[in-house]
């Protein structure tokens, strides 16, 4: 017990508070578009883009940029737009294009890091980028601020376009027939997803981002039956899981990213069970 109290004293340190704040914001953002991505059958876009972000990070590292976020953000946004565009009509079909880009950037990223990096602990660096191990605990004030601003922007965009995103997700043809510029909204979705990925890299690392995007949405869909309740539930669930995961990892000394994902998986199991038991009860 005293040990636990001792551990909770970590909260005094600003870096732990930063981590909690950033963790909550990122978890909130990443769950918002999860529902749309799952329903549009785009679950893997997050995964592909996170690999692109890894490659971009390697390039930024070689260029010895102290703040790599703008470069990574730019490259990821461009890739997101290209991926969603080519998904519509292309010689190489959507999933193949995605696989190509994601594996390609993973390989190139690692290659570049290997060839150019002067770091003594290369595999440690790579591991951190892929699994996010401790990076969330080493954020400085500027990075926290950037994270906060981007997260709030994502949330505002989502709320403003909520009804249009619903219309485009549920029935794109009907939406287009009634004059909604579905292409423009798909573009907005792509850009927002890219921003979320770059943000979430700090929290869970690039290999685990998809989990943050899809698990809360899938869990919420087991139990809730309307778009609004699913969206709200997945946001709340995602925040709770992120908090629980961060606290757990601080106390037990496990890596932040994988602990959060483990909590997400546990929540998914719980919700699946709850959905089975309530079986079609309408909430």
């Amino acid at each position, binding site marked *: 017990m005293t040990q636990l109290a001792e551990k909770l004293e970590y909260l005094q340190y600003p870096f732990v508070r930063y981590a909690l704040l950033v963790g909550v914001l990122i978890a909130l953002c990443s769950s918002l578009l999860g*529902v749309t991505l799952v*329903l*549009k*059958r785009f679950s893997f876009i997050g995964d592909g883009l996170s690999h692109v972000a890894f490659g971009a990070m390697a390039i930024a590292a070689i260029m010895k940029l102290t703040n790599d976020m703008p470069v990574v953000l730019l490259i990821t946004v461009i890739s997101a737009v290209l991926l969603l565009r080519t998904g519509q009509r292309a010689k190489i079909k959507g999933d193949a294009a995605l696989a190509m880009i994601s594996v390609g950037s993973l390989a190139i990223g690692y290659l570049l890091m290997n060839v150019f990096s002067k770091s003594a602990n290369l595999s440690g660096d790579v591991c951190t980028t892929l699994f996010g191990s401790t990076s969330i605990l080493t954020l400085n004030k500027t990075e926290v601020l950037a994270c906060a601003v981007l997260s709030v922007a994502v949330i505002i965009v989502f*709320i*403003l*376009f*909520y*009804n*249009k995103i*619903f*219309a485009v*997700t*549920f*029935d794109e*043809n*009907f*939406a*287009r*027939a*009634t*004059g*909604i510029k579905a292409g423009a909204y798909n573009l907005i979705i792509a850009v927002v997803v890219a921003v979320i990925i770059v943000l979430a890299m700090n929290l869970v690392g690039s290999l685990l981002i998809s989990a943050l995007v899809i698990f809360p949405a899938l869990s919420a*869909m087991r139990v*809730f*039956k*309307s*778009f*609004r309740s*699913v969206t709200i539930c997945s946001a709340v669930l995602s925040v709770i899981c992120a908090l629980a995961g961060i606290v757990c990892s601080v106390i037990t000394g496990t890596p932040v990213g994988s602990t959060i994902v483990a909590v997400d998986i546990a929540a998914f199991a719980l919700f699946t069970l709850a959905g089975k038991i309530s079986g*079609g009860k*309408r909430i």
Partner: protein
Amino acid sequence: MALLTCSNLSLGYEGKEIIGNLSFEVNEGDYLCIVGENGSGKSTLMKTILGLNSPLGGSVTTGGGLKQTEIGYLPQQTDVQRDFPASVWEIVLSGCQNRQGFRPFYGKAEKALAKMNMEKLGLTQLSGRCYREHSGGQQQRVLLARALCATQKMLLLDEPVSGLDPKVTAEMYEIIKELNEKDGITIIMISHDIEAALTYADKILHIGKSVFFGSAEEYKKTAGAFTSAKGGARE
């Protein structure tokens, strides 16, 4: 006054023409059925009327105060929709999007419109319930209510009874007939069911190898020429 005029339309994909030189007019209060063999371009024609595809040649124009984005569209169901978590209310309300412009949230007028159309189709009880838990017939009525929110004048129905059992099919046809006769809504319907088309529609457009456009009576007289259209399988 013609609500919809298609003149010298040429339709197809990637430069390959499926239908050429197609002209017809739809007037206020018409009930038009579009029939034809599989692959004759019925769905392409429908998408062109809605502005989702652009024609290879010719033009689609709307008149009589109807804008192209104010045509109520009842599409065929997609796989995505079958397990979509959305309430009946959310879906019907989304039909009001074409009145929204850049306003992000629905106002009182939109909510009242959605309520009215749900009442008209007997959906009020189901308002808060989940769309994917309903039967095929109920789902079609939900989508029809959404289409009604998008239009005051014209409905475009893409195979509205496909996959429904005979009893529900008959109910659906009655609902559509009532909308046409009582509310004066112009109906354009794609159908495989020639018999129903001849019973309910007053105009027929047959596309395919031979093209026919005229009243249902005239079509019956020339029916021998179009027998190949009978009993076509679902697209």
